[in-house]
């Protein structure tokens, strides 16, 4: 295994992670809610009284984060390699499967594991495993072994 020492960022990784933890802590301790983005979004599709605005407020918070950041610092490099078509397909797959599996990286990966939920451990293992295998197939099986690049 080769580690990409030029891009590996342990300190900002840990610090950013801790900040994500603080955000989840505030949300559960003050609002009594799990900071799982799919769960927050999911409730908007079968709206109930007094159950809409707190969801929208959290989502708006995520969206204004880069704007607030830019008041002080330029945004770090962001690179989306996937084509528009692939983004449409993967967006759809992510939407349907995070609802079907009751959670994503934030809900299961951060909050669920912090709650010591066995369901979330299993879900996190499942999406990490599938993510590793998918990237391996796209980047190494097609590109190097089969001799052509999957043009995604």
């Amino acid at each position, binding site marked *: 295994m080769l580690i990409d020492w030029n891009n590996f960022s342990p300190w900002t990784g840990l610090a950013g992670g801790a900040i994500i933890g603080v955000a989840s802590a505030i949300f559960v301790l003050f609002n009594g809610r799990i900071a799982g983005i799919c769960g927050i979004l999911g409730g908007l599709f079968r709206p109930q009284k007094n159950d809409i605005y707190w969801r929208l407020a959290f989502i708006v918070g995520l969206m204004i*984060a*880069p704007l607030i950041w830019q008041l002080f610092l330029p945004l770090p490099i962001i690179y989306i390699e996937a084509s528009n078509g692939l*983004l449409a397909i993967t967006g759809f797959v992510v939407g349907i499967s995070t609802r079907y599996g009751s959670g994503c990286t934030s809900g299961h990966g951060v909050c669920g594991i912090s709650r010591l939920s066995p369901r979330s451990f299993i879900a996190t293992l*499942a999406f990490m495993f599938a993510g590793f295998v998918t990237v391996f197939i796209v980047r190494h099986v097609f590109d190097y072994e089969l001799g052509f690049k999957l043009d995604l």
Partner: protein
Amino acid sequence: MQKHFSNIIALLFSLLSGTIFGLGLIIAGMANPAKVLAFLDLAGLWDPSLALVMSGAIGVGLVAFALAKKRSTSFLGLKMHLPSLRIIDKRLVIGGLTFGIGWGLSGICPAPAFVLLGTGATKAIIFVVFMLIGMEIFEKIESYRKKVSAY
């Protein structure tokens, strides 16, 4: 009036949590799909950063959720909504696996998708729109299944 005021406070905390969450993702580099994919690429030049992001978040989260589990109401007096489901079923595993495939192909999961949307990236708009369509279709299928099983 009192109730109205406490609702607004709760909304502000919600907005604050979302904003801090988003800033954390940016600092961690996780708003950059290329960095997420570099973590998932074990056989290439591997960037382990995402594992440290998870560790940092869970380190703080463990304390917060241990405290949250002991409480019946939040600091603002709201009901605690903690999941109670315990069963590990097919849905959980299949949903996790297919989500992982989508995540591995794009490098984007739902929270960073909204941070990316805030940067105005066209590609993020496409991803989010189709993610919402996917969620809407999930709801349609669920309500259809419920109707069928009610007979």
